[in-house]
């Protein structure tokens, strides 16, 4: 919200910096959601080994265990597997993407050029869309040449 302010002073900029610092402190809560496709696939591949162990354990003790104990053991195994998968995902996850870093330049840019709202691309995009509609799509020959 601070980034969208129409005007800034030293106080609002210091609030903005403070919010950014605090958000970086608590960002690890969402670390699990930052795991990439490869990390997710690797983590899911880990599932096979504990599942095998679980089956062996079940077969070995099938006769001696009561149904309630069996259910309890199975739940414990499931918890263990999901915990291991989450742990693996978290180890590979990070927040290293450009937009996360760009936030650290915002305060500096406001000092340099003024509020961010006046430089939003929203207005320009509308302008380009309107012009494109007026001019029309480029002839096919040009776009084909570009593709080649």
């Amino acid at each position, binding site marked *: *919200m601070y*980034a*969208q302010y129409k005007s800034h002073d030293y106080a609002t900029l210091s609030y903005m*910096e403070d919010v*950014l*610092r605090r958000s*970086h*402190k608590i*960002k690890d*809560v*969402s670390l*699990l*959601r930052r795991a990439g496709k490869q990390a997710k696939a690797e983590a899911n591949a880990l599932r096979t080994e504990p599942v095998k162990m679980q089956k062996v354990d079940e077969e070995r003790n099938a006769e001696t265990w009561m149904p309630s104990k069996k259910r309890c053991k199975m739940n414990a195994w499931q918890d263990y597997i999901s915990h291991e998968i989450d742990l693996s995902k978290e180890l590979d996850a*990070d*927040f*290293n*993407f*450009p*937009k*996360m*870093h*760009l*936030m*650290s*330049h*915002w*305060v*500096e*840019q406001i000092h*340099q*050029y003024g509020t*961010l*709202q006046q*430089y*939003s*691309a*929203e207005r*320009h*995009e509308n*302008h*380009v869309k309107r*012009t*494109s509609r007026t*001019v029309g799509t*480029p002839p096919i020959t*040009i*776009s084909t040449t*570009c*593709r*080649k």
Partner: protein
Amino acid sequence: MHSVVMVALLPIPIKNRSIPQKWLDEQWQTNREVLNEALRRILQPLTFQQNPSAESGYYNVLCVDGSFRHCKPVLAAWLAECPEYSDLHHLERHVCFRCECSKNALGDYVPPDKQQPRRDHNQYRTLSDANAKAANAKLLSRHVDRGFNVFRHIPCMVSNLLKADLVHSMQIGMLDHLQKWIFHFIKAHERLEKYNALWLSVPAYHDLTPKTKSYEEVSQWNGKEMKEMSRYLRGVVTQSL
């Protein structure tokens, strides 16, 4: 004060995701070259080669009264998205176009007094022209691609001119990520029903459009909707926890 003047509309090739990755890479490379060539022609009067006095920052400009004067034109800032900046500046993808921060440190908090040095495109031109092993290693460590780029031939600090694009970097950038993280957090803590109910109950107050769909039912968000959402997101999340 600033204004926008349309100089050129570059053709956008048709997106086709079913073609092989190799062709897509070739297409991307061609697009990059076309963009650089178009900008080279536009910015040619400002380059070092065109004006010998440009090293000092001044240009001999033919004025309307027929006489030459020493002028100092200032290249204004422009707006683009992160991948577009990478194409414009001949950088690798997924790097900061403003400072020389490494790819592995993009997610870390950087205090204002400990920022990495700005990207100096004139220095990149020298390194690229040198074509030596050490120079190439330096470029590689800064995630810079070799080759001609018109911004490396302009006598100014190009990385100072860039401005944050609020729509792409914040509204449909970070807010989108944040919304997804919050949604999964709330789902994991079994508060989704309450969250959806609160989401739908946001009234049409002060230009807010009334909600007809919950967050997960909306397939695509645009900039205006994200901007609106930033106004009530905090309240909805706080109440649902």
